[in-house]
């Protein structure tokens, strides 16, 4: 729904600016050019995106994501001590984290929701500290190989679309750390529960 507002706002502002600054011709041709470039972008992204979905499926079939999920259990036990007492919640959270790392967004969300539902039981609609932490973890990006971005870069004519990986990793680690720290600090300030 928010995007409807954003879209309407952008188009209307474009019209207003176009009228005020006498750029209506440019705005009109940009609208058509934008629509054309969207399909072009989609098609030039297709190869890399499909290859990557294929690789992810390979990893899934080999049991790599399940192995990764096992590796995260000890860490998650410390991060979410209460929720981890429930074995099924812990399994869902660790599978959620490993799917996020591998960039399997379609798999990660249902797993995360399953965990969130179990953690929200009997709390009367108020999020617990640990549930807030789980959601913050999911609003930060911890994807190891950002394949969609690489495919957009290669569509824009970049020869080495993956050369940003180290930069993405560094920025992701800093961002996740900030999110988790902020969640900790704010929960303490608000009198944790």
């Amino acid at each position: 729904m928010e995007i409807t507002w954003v879209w309407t706002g952008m188009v209307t502002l474009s019209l207003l600016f176009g009228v005020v600054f006498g750029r209506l011709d440019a705005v009109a041709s940009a609208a058509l050019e934008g629509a054309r470039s969207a399909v072009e972008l989609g098609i030039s992204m297709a190869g890399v995106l499909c290859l990557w979905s294929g690789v992810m499926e390979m990893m899934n079939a080999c049991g790599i994501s399940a192995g990764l999920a096992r590796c995260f259990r000890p860490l998650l036990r410390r991060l979410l001590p209460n929720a981890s007492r429930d074995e099924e919640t812990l399994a869902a959270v660790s599978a959620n984290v490993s799917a996020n790392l591998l960039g399997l967004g379609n798999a990660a969300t249902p797993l995360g929701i399953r965990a969130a539902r179990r953690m929200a039981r009997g709390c009367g609609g108020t999020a617990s500290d640990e549930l807030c932490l789980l959601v913050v973890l999911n609003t930060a990006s911890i994807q190891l190989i950002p394949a969609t971005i690489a495919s957009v870069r290669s569509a824009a004519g970049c020869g080495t679309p993956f050369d940003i990986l180290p930069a993405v990793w560094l920025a992701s680690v800093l961002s996740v750390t900030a999110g988790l720290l902020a969640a900790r600090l704010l929960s303490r300030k608000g009198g944790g529960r």
Partner: protein
Amino acid sequence: MRDLGSLVIPLLLSAVAVYGLGKRVDVYAALTHGAEEGLTVLLRVIPALVGLLTAVSMFRASGAMEWLSGLLAPVLELLGIPEETAPLLLVRPVSGNGALAVASDLMRAHGPDSYVGRVAAVMLGSTETTFYTIAVYFGSAGITKTRHTVPAALAADLTGFAAAALAVRLFFGGP
């Protein structure tokens, strides 16, 4: 350090395939099955991109984007974020496809290997569609009091944006 990115992909492809073969998994069938799923994802993304890239393209041509970037420039300068990425910062927490459209517009306008193009790509890779995620999780868990989730998640986003610019300067040099 840049070579690391080039090593990851071929190494990963071959390592996963060899490992899968060792476990007697039909990795090639898995690959093609996954690629098919990639196509269905794309089919969902393209219509959204048509709408969004049309809007972004108009927004840039009308001069509204420049105005918006100029408006946020003083704050962004403080954080070391290039002002050209201002529209990306605003769209990112709300819409994943919108952010994809804005970032691809930035890469086209400045070049994918330019400072701004790289920062846009790293920003996209180190943040998520925060409000959408919060709505989906709390909505399906029946939570109405989200307490400190939104501020903490936005702190992560803001850090991600500033860190993206910092990381690009670190690995590829400044503008």
